[in-house]
């Protein structure tokens, strides 16, 4: 009859979890051993009784009680992925350090300084006034646009709104003179700097957030 299989093997046999080789060995032993056969039957009965334990139910209204305490996610609108993608692209070009912001500010300030310097140099000549410069630029732009854009752009320039805008700016430059242009440039530079600062403070600087969710990892 040989030695008796250990309890673990008998349990494994009872729950049909033994590999084929071991199963055959245990089975041949059981044919000749009443004690081990009885033990296997006991295990089988226990496993069946355990499997027959009924599932227990919580009291009525359990689902409602759970749902009353669950935070449902807000359904994302269809255009949300586009906004997220745009945000990701923007995040790539937004500077991540003070040095980066300084460089970006320099890129913005450089044209302003160069343009301002050029204007100062131009207006240092007696024969050149803001009014004559504006007339010259306006004529050059009009002829350039006419040749480039054709009749449509020319028609746009002829509209009353554009004509009013051109006249207003021309009058402003003519009456304000050099001090007016300087004030305009200084105001523009100030507005640019202020906008960049606000943009940096409220949009791109990631605030520290505390998650109220518990994280689980498997």
């Amino acid at each position, binding site marked *: 009859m040989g030695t008796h299989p250990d309890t*673990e093997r008998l349990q494994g046999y009872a729950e049909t979890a033994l590999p084929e080789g071991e199963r055959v060995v245990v089975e041949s032993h059981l044919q000749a051993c009443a004690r081990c056969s009885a033990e296997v039957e006991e295990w089988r009965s*226990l496993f069946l009784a355990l499997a027959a334990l*009924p599932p227990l139910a*919580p009291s009525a209204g359990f689902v409602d009680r759970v749902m009353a305490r669950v935070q449902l*996610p807000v*359904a994302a609108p269809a255009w949300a992925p586009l906004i997220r993608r745009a945000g990701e692209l923007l995040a790539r070009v937004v500077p991540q350090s003070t040095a980066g912001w300084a460089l970006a500010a320099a890129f913005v300030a450089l044209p302003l300084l160069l343009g301002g310097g050029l204007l100062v140099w131009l207006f240092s000549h007696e024969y050149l006034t803001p009014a004559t410069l504006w007339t010259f630029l306006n004529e050059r732009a009009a002829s350039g646009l006419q040749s480039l854009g054709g009749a449509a752009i020319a028609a746009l320039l002829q509209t009353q709104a554009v004509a009013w805008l051109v006249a207003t700016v021309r009058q402003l430059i003519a009456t304000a003179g050099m001090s007016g242009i300087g004030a305009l440039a200084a105001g523009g530079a100030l507005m640019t700097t202020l906008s960049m600062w606000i943009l940096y403070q409220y949009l791109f600087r990631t605030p520290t957030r505390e998650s109220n969710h*518990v994280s689980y990892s498997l």
Partner: protein
Amino acid sequence: MNYAELTDQQVIEQARRGRESAFRELVRRYERPVFSLIYRLVRDREKAEDLAQETFIKVLNALDRYDPGYKFSSWIFKIAHNTALDLLRRKEPETLSIHGSPHARTDAEIEASTITPESGGENPEQYTANRETGAIIEQAMARIRPEYRTAILLCHVEGRPYEEIAVIMDVPLGTVKTFIHRGRNELKRELEHLRG
């Protein structure tokens, strides 16, 4: 939407889109197995209800972080097991009892904190016999170590494979086999003792 034909993963997808009905479906699918496991670990109806609620709230509020690479059932059982274990660790060991809440003092309190299994469609004699056998097994189960009890419940009552039990209990596969083997032996001893 008819959720009965959807898999857990498909229902979770719907829940992530904010559908309340999908959340309800997940709770309906798992309320009994989760509650059964917790109740059989803590042996107190009121506490088991609170812990089962806590489990579902944790699971549903963290659904956006659920990794579909894992079985949902493993995840929810793992959280249920950990939630029950937290209570057992805080609880004085001698207070565990099969007869309802250990804090119940009157017959009414004991009755209220104990669960009577529903009939599974058997005839009255079978129901009574099964209930008696079930009560003895539950009594024996209450006496074995909690980790053995969890492994036995997941293996034999919930029918989970050893690999999944290892994930749920966060122990190596070999440890699960040891827990189950020793748990069965302890359970058998307790049954022999209870039957006299």
